[in-house]
């Protein structure tokens, strides 16, 4: 056997530490900034030691920022609410539509089945603007412009293929004989689907739901093109906020922290399934 020498071990440790620093420092630093006043942020050289303040968060939550120049309205909480509605709504609808479809593709070979499955997959790879730009014109015409429903509909292009292809893999892993056994025992197809297939694929369905929520939450371009200020999620809102608030860096940092916390938390929660989800079911973690 090869023995790892002490030198190798140290080198390995140093490299891993370097990687951790590079990938975690930005999150750490923005978190620190969010607890600092503008004056503290602007201090040079920057310091790790400061008296933390919650002012950035309170002003985001109350929606008002008191400055020397007067009171400034902040719409950030509204953006947060939009993100929640858009992501949750999209995921729920995608689950409702995607899980049965995933089952069909997993269990039946029917005419055009693979064509349909791959068509749905290909939506994930097409340049989004190609569709979004003409869509702005159509959405105006049919009254879906700047509505939650319109946005959630378009979000299906992100969440549905993801759910379809992850859950399909989970259904494929269930032995068809288990379903057959339940039917032969005297239960209808629908009951078998609800009592056997869905419960057995539940981990996959949950994982696909969480992951597609993360992707919906993190989406930027869909809402940038199709939503006005009152329907924009945090990704677009935070950017607009930078321009609006000018130099209120503490609030921007706090807004970023609030915006990325849900996805980071969900990711930790769903980490067992992340690999499978990110590869659309091609690699098991």
């Amino acid at each position, binding site marked *: 056997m090869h023995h790892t020498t002490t030198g190798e071990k140290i080198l390995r440790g140093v490299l891993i530490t370097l990687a951790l620093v590079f990938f975690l420092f930005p999150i750490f630093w923005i978190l620190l900034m969010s607890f600092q006043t503008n004056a503290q942020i602007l201090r040079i050289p920057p310091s790790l030691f400061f008296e933390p303040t919650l002012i950035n968060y309170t002003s985001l939550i109350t929606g008002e920022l008191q400055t020397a120049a007067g009171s400034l309205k902040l719409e950030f909480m509204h953006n947060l609410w939009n993100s929640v509605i858009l992501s949750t709504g999209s995921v729920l609808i995608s689950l409702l539509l995607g899980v049965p479809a995933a089952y069909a593709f997993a269990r039946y070979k029917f005419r055009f089945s693979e064509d349909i499955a791959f068509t749905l997959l290909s939506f994930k790879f097409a340049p989004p603007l190609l569709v979004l730009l003409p869509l702005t014109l159509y959405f105006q015409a049919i009254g879906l412009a700047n509505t939650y429903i319109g946005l959630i509909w378009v979000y299906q292009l992100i969440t549905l293929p993801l759910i379809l292809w992850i859950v399909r893999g989970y259904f494929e892993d269930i*032995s068809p004989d*288990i379903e*057959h056994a339940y*039917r032969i025992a*005297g*239960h209808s197809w629908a009951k078998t689907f609800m009592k056997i297939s869905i419960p057995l694929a539940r981990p996959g369905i949950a994982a696909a739901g969480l992951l597609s929520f993360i992707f919906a939450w993190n989406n930027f371009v869909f809402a940038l093109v199709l939503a006005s200020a009152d329907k924009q999620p945090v990704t677009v809102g935070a950017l607009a906020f930078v321009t609006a608030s000018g130099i209120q860096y503490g609030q921007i940092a706090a807004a970023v922290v609030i915006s990325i916390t849900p996805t980071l938390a969900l990711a930790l929660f769903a980490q067992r399934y992340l690999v499978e989800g990110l590869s659309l079911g091609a690699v098991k973690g």
Partner: protein
Amino acid sequence: MTMLDLQRVTKRYGKDTVLDDISLSVDEGETVAIFGPSGAGKTVLLRLIAGMAEPEEGAILVNGEDLIDVAPENRAVGMAFQNFALFPHMSAFENIASPLEARRSTKDAVADGVHKIAKLLKIDHVLGHAPRELSNGQKQRTALARALVAAPRLLLLDDPLRNVDAKLRFEMRLELPRLLEGFGSTVLYVTQDYREAMALGNRIGVLIDGHFVQIGTPEDIYLTPTTIEVAELFGDPVINLFEGRVEKAGDGTTAAIGDAKLPLPTGYEDQVGQPVIFGIRPENIAKADDGTAGAIAAKVAALLPLNDRLVRLLVSDDGHEFYTSRDLGSEEAVGEGARLSVSAAPQDIILFERDSRRRIAPAR
């Protein structure tokens, strides 16, 4: 009365014809063992009857009713799967209860039914366990209980003893016939083990490459196999085959195997001069008195203990190798290298055509 009637059933998967124009009638209360090598189409046959797949051609009738448009849940069959197919997220109790629940029995009736069958199969102490907590034997019994609990008119057992250890298989082989009889169900029992087929089946259907090569009672199949292939599938050690020809001897005929000439029963007179293959089962080869005319002179080449019997590999003076499993005397008396003469009773010699490998029945 015919309960299950398969009429010229053909099943294809793509270009593969898995079952080719097969027919079989099963009487009420009868157990038919479907026996054959793996890949013969045994499981597919059960799937067609259970409604998990549809035949391309032919009809499947139960009590005269065509099942083609009947959904699996309405076919009132019970099935035990080779891989058990237990519901992993339900307890053993819930597994067994599922057929009763589907029939909308009351809660008490369900519990009653489950406990009764569980007791019979000696798994009443593990009813609360999840399938992954059960031993293989308990899983197998749970699967069996689930198939039996609703007393289905037709019971399909797909090699249920395949995945259990040898000791358990031995026990179950003794226990199952009694159990099945108690239920009075009509049973199709799929197996790859000829002993199981012979122990459990009132009749055996020998399925090879999608065809029933022979359907008959265990005795029929053992004593009068239709082909050499069937003869070879039943019996251990395998049947001895000798190429030779039928020769005339006085009023009767003999089997000429090399220099040996074994008398044949009447009815083969028209085969005289034909090259044939003689099949003699190892247990039918007996020691002949020294000097018996026409006996096979041979030497013991090897001794092979098999279960409780002693099997000998003999080589005749003209080079034929064959087995005997009959008592030829003690190991010391007839050991390796010993010389002896053997022969077989006329009725124990089975004749096959050399080219078609089919059995030649004696003329009446």
